[in-house]
């Protein structure tokens, strides 16, 4: 059962076709990875799905609905969460505030009740905090709870990105290069977490990655891109052995 489908997706920036006729679908509960050299259009696809960019062609279907024209701030409520390649955390807020912000899509209080901080708002705050604690436990972030993001090391920030995306209670999680900048130990942790996200939390994962060991370890299916065009799609082994992919990407 396909949770997310991209049909013939294209976007051009001026004369450059960043994404050119890419089609793929992501089944419910699988980990789908997009690989490709730098500049292949991987993050651009993510930006299209998050609706930061508008596609010049093609369609995006999520959970049976067409989301090609949905406004960017409505995507989180639909159930799509993403992490950013270059860490877009809220630097001058604490980790806890970052995670609580992810609950914003599930906010049910209006301005005036917040202005007076009515008991209903207080109750909802406690609910949000309880929900966020589950994620903090899952990713072992307890000791950083009240630290400002500016004070945290890079590895912890990467994990916080993941935590923040998880706090939105997504059905589809977009991970943009989750292991970039992490050492071997941290990458192994990330691999375990992605597997837990898939099996324990039941969230579908769409991932962009360069680290082929991580890709082979966690992915169910892989799509290889080059210059915005799809090269091959299949299991990690099939894609790695594909001649086009070897030529373009792995230097074979």
């Amino acid at each position, binding site marked *: 059962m396909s949770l997310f489908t991209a049909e013939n997706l294209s976007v051009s920036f001026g004369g450059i076709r960043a994404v050119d006729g890419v089609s793929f679908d992501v089944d419910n509960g699988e980990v789908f990875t997009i690989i490709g050299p730098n500049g292949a259009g991987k*993050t651009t696809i993510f930006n299209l799905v998050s609706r930061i960019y508008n596609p010049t062609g093609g369609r995006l279907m999520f959970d049976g609905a067409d989301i090609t024209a949905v406004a960017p701030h409505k995507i989180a409520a639909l159930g799509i969460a993403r992490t950013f390649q*270059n860490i*877009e955390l809220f630097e001058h807020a604490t980790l806890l505030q970052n995670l609580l912000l992810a609950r914003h899509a599930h906010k049910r209080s209006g301005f005036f009740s917040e202005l007076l901080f009515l008991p209903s708002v207080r109750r909802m705050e406690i609910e949000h905090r309880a929900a966020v604690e589950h994620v903090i436990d899952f990713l072992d972030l307890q000791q950083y709870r009240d630290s400002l993001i500016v004070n945290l090391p890079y590895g912890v920030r990467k994990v916080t990105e993941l935590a923040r995306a998880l706090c939105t209670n997504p059905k589809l999680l977009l991970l943009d290069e989750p292991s970039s900048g992490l050492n071997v130990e941290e990458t192994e942790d990330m691999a375990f977490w992605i597997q837990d996200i898939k099996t324990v939390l039941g969230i579908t994962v769409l991932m962009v990655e360069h680290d082929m060991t991580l890709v082979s370890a966690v992915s169910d299916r892989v799509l290889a891109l080059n210059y915005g065009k799809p090269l091959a799609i299949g299991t990690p082994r099939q894609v790695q052995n594909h001649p086009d992919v070897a030529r373009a990407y792995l230097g074979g």
Partner: protein
Amino acid sequence: MCQFTTGPHSALTALNSCSYCRRTRRHQIARHKGWKLVTFLQLTLNGLAVGCIYGLVALGFVLIYKATELVNFAQGDLLMLGAFVAYMAVVWWKLDYWVAFLISGVLVAAFGALLDAVVLRRVIGQPQFAVVMLTIGLGSIFRTFASVTWGSEIYTLPTPFGGVTTIGGVTLSHQYLSIVAGTFLLCGVLYLFFTYTRIGIAMQATSQNQLAAYYMGIPVKLIFSLIWAISAGVAAAAGILLSPVTLIDTNMGFAVALKAFAAAVLGGFGSIPGALVGGIIIGLIELYAGAALSEGLKNTAPYIVMLVVLAIRPQGLFGTLARKKV
């Protein structure tokens, strides 16, 4: 006494930026019934002159912004300092006008470079808003310094551009012609400098990509100081050219800076030709509005136009909309 209130075109030549008229608020506006070509040409010339001043100050803003991403809210006060130094050279030290022009330009330029080296270099990396407030504070200090050093009254700078030429009914004041000529001369020199000299090209490189400039061996900090020097020098020149029109006082820079901002924003903050074009547009609007509309609208017409342009095209006429790449 405003030297233009007694002429036949007093309404048009004594601009709303004339400090005496603004102060007494007894400015008589001659109503011209109906448009005549002569009137229109007169307005256009005067608007061009005023616009050139705004354009020069806006040019200073944009030069600094392009290089360092800082907005220098003290630009107007550098203009004021330039005017005062020239006044001091001519009236106190009894020097020739052109010598005073040169001295003022060089001194204020050196001061601008010093500002960059001593003060601005320390705040690189702080959020933009903090640096903007820093320059506002500096402007305040300059105004007080001027008030303490030279006095808080209105002063006149004697210039060699007295008199008018009349061509076909259109009165060309030599002061105004000097402003336009001076602006185009200055802009021409700057254009040649940036395009054909090594330092100019190095400046362009630095403003586009600091890190790459460092790698190419360009002394980036020195270049920044030079850009500040040029910017301050341009402001000083604008101040000296403006002095005969608005007379010199400590607040002359502030009013001009506000309109020059509008000009820079209108042209698009990253664009040097945009600054000039924006300045001239603002100047023309001010003059046309002053002749055709009521007093209140005359003062605010440039800002209203700027707001309309920003609403339709937020990046100004020549600017580009930058978006963070995620």
